[in-house]
């Protein structure tokens, strides 16, 4: 599973990255988390509010930082 956290280093982006890592660990997933900070790349996902979460090239969250539990279910949902 390839996970990308989109955002150019704002506080919320860091929070999302941290929570996503936590959710991945809790689920015991084999996943690689990448940070995308280039604005062109971020915009190319059609994302207009950061932070955003992309799982296997699909945007699943944009403009908010969900709780770890919600991220877990999002990751499970996206993986199947």
């Amino acid at each position: 599973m390839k996970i990308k956290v989109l955002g150019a280093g704002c506080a919320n982006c860091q929070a999302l990255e941290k929570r996503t890592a936590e959710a991945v660990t809790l689920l015991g997933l084999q996943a690689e988390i990448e940070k995308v900070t280039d604005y062109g790349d971020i915009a190319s996902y059609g994302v207009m509010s950061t932070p955003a979460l992309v799982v296997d090239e699909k945007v699943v969250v944009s403009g908010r930082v969900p709780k770890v539990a919600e991220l877990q279910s999002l990751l499970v949902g996206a993986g199947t």
Partner: protein
Amino acid sequence: MKALLNTDVQAIPAVRSSWRVWGGLLAAVAVWAAAYQANGPLWQWAIYDMSGFASDNRLGSALEFFFFDTVKILLLLAGIIFAVTVLRSFMSVERTRALLGGRREGVGNVAAAGLGVVTPFCSCSAVPGFIGFVAAGVPLGITMSFLIASPMVNEVAIVLLYGLFGWQVAAIYVTAGLVVAVVAGWVIGRLRLERWIESFVFETTLRGQPVDPSQGLGWVDRFAIAREEVRTIISKIWPYLLAGIGIGAAIHGWVPEGFFVKYAGPNNALAVPVAVGLGIPLYSNAAGILPLVEALHAKGLAIGTVLAFMMSVVALSVPELVLLRRVLKPRLLAVFVGVVGTGILAVGFLFNLIL
């Protein structure tokens, strides 16, 4: 009461949780209203009756001012940020873009400025937002009206103006802010400066289905988001707020009446440009600066100067300009600062003249 709820309604978890959410909200509103009402009498009693300050004691009145204002502004911030965030959770940048697509200039600028106020939008998203608008065909000037109104007419500025200066000043600020956003965006659009947008913006292809953050939220989620927003904003600004109110209290107590009339009264034409210039680097400190400015106003700083200063602090901030530089070439950035700055100056001069 709590035990009764737990046993009686446990069979229907959805009902129980909605009881809890709306009951919690109602309780919070009641506590908030009681605290707001009690704030004035409480400090009167604590400072003059309990601590024995004479009613004309400078330290006593400065302390009362400090505690009363701090609690009042914190309560207003919490209440209004919560309400605004809940309302805004029904909107999203995605929906705003869809509403603005294909609008003509003029009407489009007005719509964009209005939507800038109601759309949840963090200035940290200014760049992806800009690319998303322009690459989807929203005209530059209309995009600019949105990007100017969004930070300018923000809830923290409005709360502080309302709490410190009263609703008339807050209303003037909102109206003037919208006019500046509409006119500045329209002017930038008329100038046809698309060639000064960084070219990668137009080369960006929008693939993928955008996710609308406002979709699929229940009331519980909206309240949770709003609570989180209140916590984030207040934990970020409280030190500045306390410092600003503290210095403001000292000015109220010890600076002579009318002190600033001489230097920054309505007749000093230089005061407005100086205020606008000072406002540009002061972004994160808006919460601390306004209480200070209120004290200066009480000693004679003119109201138009206050409004221009506030607008400059929020709409022309260095961090935002640094962000916009990613998508705007230096010339367009300079035009942006020039046009918005001129609008703010006009607001300052106008209200110094008529109020």
